[in-house]
C-alpha cells in the first residue's frame, strides 16, 4: 500500500533527510566496474537528469534504484530506509522503460491498471484513476487499443501513465524520449515537465541527450566511466564546468592548453602555444599545477573586422588576430572557424540576428576575435 499513500509518516518525521540518498554505491559486472562509488542526494519534487555517454553507468545506476540490480557496495536510502537489497516489487519506485515495455497482450486500459490491480485497489477506484490518467496523457477513447495499434508517441504516453499510476515517490525514466522523432520530442519534453509539476513527483531521468537534460532537469549529474563527474544546475554545468571532460562533453567548447605565468588581483595570465598570452578570471577551485587549459564557449567569442575600441593593454580583454578558415551557416547561428596567427584554431558562433547581416564573414577574411577574461574557464589539464 506504501506506493499509493499520499503522504508518508517517515517524510515528516525526518525532514532533514533527502527523499533519496545514494551513498557510495558501486557495481561490478565480472571485472568491469559499471558504477564506482557514486554518492548523490535527490530532493523531493526534483527533476534530476543523469547524463553521460553510453556505457558510463547511468543506466546501471537507475536499475539499482529500481531494484533490478543489487549494488555490490554502498546504500540506497529512500526516506532514510536502506532499500539497496529490496526486490523491485516492494519498492515505492516505478520505472518507465526505454522500450516502454507495454504488455502486448493487454489493451491500454489494462496496461495502465496493471499496477493498481496488483496493489489490490478496489475496482471503482481503479476505474476512476485510469480515467484520470487517460485524460492526463490525452489518450481518451483509445483505452481498448492494443499497444501494437498505437503510434510511437501514444505508446510513450501509455508507458508514462502506467508508470505514474501508483503515484510512486520516485519515478525513474530510462531514455524516455529516445524513440521519438525530433518534432515530437520537443512537445513531449514540455508535456513531461508539466506532468511532473502537476503531480509533484520526483523524477530521475537517464539520457545521453544533453539538450533533453538541459530542458527538463533542475539539476544534472554528469557521469563518466562509472563516476559522477559533476552535479550542477544546467547553467552551472555549462558556464562553470569543473573539469575539462565536462566542459568538452556538455556543449561546444574551444580548449587551449597553456601555463599559468602570473596570478594577481584575481586574474591569471596564461601563456599558450597557439594563442599567445590570455588573461582569465581566477577560478575558485583550481589546483596548484601550472599546466592548465583555457576553455571558451564559441558564443562567448566576438568577431569583428576591426578591434573594439577598448584598452587592451590593461588586460581587460583578450584579443586574437586570425583568418576565417570555414563558415557553417546553421540558420539561427553561423559557426566560424578562425585560424589564429599563433597557430591555434578557434570556433566562434554568432547569432544571425538580422536577415541581411553586416557581420557575415567569408573564408579567407582577416578578423579579430575577442573575448572577456570572465568568459575564460581555467581548468586542470
Amino acid at each position, binding site marked *: 500500500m506504501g506506493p499509493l499513500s499520499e503522504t508518508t509518516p517517515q517524510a515528516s518525521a525526518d525532514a532533514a533527510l533527502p527523499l533519496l540518498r545514494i551513498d557510495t554505491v558501486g557495481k561490478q559486472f565480472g571485472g568491469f566496474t559499471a558504477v564506482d562509488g557514486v554518492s548523490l542526494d535527490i530532493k523531493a519534487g526534483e527533476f534530476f537528469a543523469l547524463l553521460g555517454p553510453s556505457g558510463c553507468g547511468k543506466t546501471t545506476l537507475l536499475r539499482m534504484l*529500481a531494484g*533490478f540490480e543489487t549494488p555490490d557496495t554502498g546504500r540506497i536510502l529512500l526516506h532514510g530506509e536502506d532499500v539497496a537489497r529490496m526486490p523491485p516489487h516492494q519498492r515505492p519506485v516505478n520505472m518507465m522503460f526505454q*522500450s516502454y515495455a507495454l504488455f502486448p497482450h493487454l489493451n491500454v486500459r489494462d496496461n495502465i491498471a*496493471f499496477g493498481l490491480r*496488483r496493489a489490490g485497489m478496489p475496482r471503482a477506484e481503479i476505474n476512476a484513476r485510469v480515467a484520470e490518467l487517460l485524460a492526463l496523457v490525452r489518450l481518451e477513447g483509445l483505452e481498448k487499443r492494443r499497444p501494437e495499434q498505437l503510434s510511437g508517441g501514444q505508446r510513450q504516453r501509455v508507458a508514462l501513465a502506467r508508470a505514474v499510476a501508483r503515484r510512486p515517490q520516485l519515478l525513474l525514466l530510462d531514455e524516455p524520449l529516445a524513440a521519438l522523432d525530433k518534432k515530437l520530442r520537443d512537445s513531449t519534453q514540455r508535456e513531461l515537465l508539466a506532468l511532473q509539476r502537476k503531480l509533484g513527483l520526483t523524477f530521475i531521468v537517464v539520457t545521453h541527450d544533453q539538450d533533453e537534460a538541459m530542458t527538463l532537469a533542475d539539476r544534472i549529474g554528469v557521469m563518466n566511466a562509472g563516476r559522477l563527474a559533476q552535479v550542477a544546475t544546467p547553467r552551472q554545468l555549462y558556464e562553470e564546468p569543473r573539469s575539462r571532460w565536462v566542459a568538452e562533453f556538455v556543449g561546444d567548447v574551444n580548449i587551449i592548453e597553456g601555463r599559468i605565468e602570473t596570478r594577481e588581483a584575481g586574474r591569471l595570465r596564461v601563456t599558450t602555444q597557439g594563442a599567445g598570452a590570455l588573461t582569465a578570471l581566477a577560478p575558485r577551485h583550481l589546483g596548484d599545477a601550472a599546466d592548465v587549459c583555457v576553455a571558451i564557449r564559441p558564443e562567448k567569442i566576438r568577431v569583428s573586422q576591426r578591434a573594439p575600441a577598448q584598452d587592451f593593454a590593461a588586460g581587460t580583454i583578450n584579443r586574437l588576430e586570425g583568418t576565417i578558415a570555414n563558415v557553417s551557416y546553421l540558420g539561427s547561428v553561423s559557426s566560424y572557424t578562425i585560424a589564429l596567427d599563433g597557430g591555434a584554431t578557434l570556433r566562434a558562433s554568432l547569432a544571425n540576428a538580422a536577415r541581411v547581416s553586416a557581420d557575415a564573414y567569408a573564408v579567407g577574411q582577416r578578423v579579430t576575435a575577442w573575448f572577456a577574461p570572465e568568459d575564460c574557464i581555467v581548468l586542470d589539464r
Partner: protein
Amino acid sequence: MSARRFAAMSRFNVASLALGLAFLYLPIVILVIYSFNGSQLVTVWGGWSLRWYTAFFNDEAMLTAAGTSLRVAAVSATLAAVLGTLAALALVRGERFKGRTLFSGMLYAPLVMPEVITGLSLLLLFVALGAERGFWTVTIAHTTLTMCFVAVIVQSRLGSIDRSLEEAAMDLGCGPVKAFVAVTLPLIAPAIAAGWMLAFTLSLDDLVIASFTTGPGSATLPIRIYSEVRLGVKPEINAICALIIGAVTLAIVTASLATKLSSRRGGNAAPM
C-alpha cells in the same frame, strides 16, 4: 518479351509445383479414396461405401489400440510441453549458468538421433531399471522424443520477447513468479500450444520407439496396424489411416495457426 518469358517461367513453376504436390499427396489421396471402397479386396474398386469405417468402429482390438495411442499421445504431449517449456526457459533466461551451450546442443540431439537408437537405448534403460513395460514406458519414451521439439518452439518465442516486459511487471508490484504468470506465460502460451500439438502428432505417428518400449496389452495403433498388415492388408486399414491423416492434418493446421497468432502478438508488429 520479358513478360512472355515470365509467363513461360511461371507455367513451368506451376507444372513443377503440381508434380511435386502429386508426388507427395497422390498416395495419400488414393488411400483416402480406397478407404471408401466397398470391395473386399484392397486393389479392386467396388463402389463407394462406409463399410470399412463401420468395421473399424466394431473392431474391439483396433479401438483399444487407438485408445492407447490417444492416451499415450495426450499424456506424453502434456509432459513434453511442461518439460520443454522449462528447458526453453533455462536456455533463454538462464544467461549465467555454465555449460549452457552444451545443454542446448544436447537438447537438439533427439531431433537428429535415429529412432531405432533412441528406442533401443530406452529399452535397455527400462530393462536395466526393471520397469514393467507398458503404457508408462511408451509415454515416457515419447516424452523424451517430443520435449525437444517443444523446447525449440518455445525457445524461439521466448527469445523474441523483450526482457523488460517481465521487469515492468515486477516494477508494478509482481513478485518474480507472478510476473512470469501474468506476462510471460500469456505471451508464450501459443508457442506452448503449438509444441503440444506437434508432440501429440509425433507420438501418434511413432511406430519404432513405441515397438521397442511397449509391453503386452498396450500396443499403440501404429503397432497394431503394422502387425495386421504383415498378415495382409485389409481395407479396414485404409479407413483407419484416413482417420489418422484427418487427425494429424487438424493438429498441424492448429499448431501453425497458434504459432502465427503468437508471433503476431509479439513486440511491435504492424497493426492488423
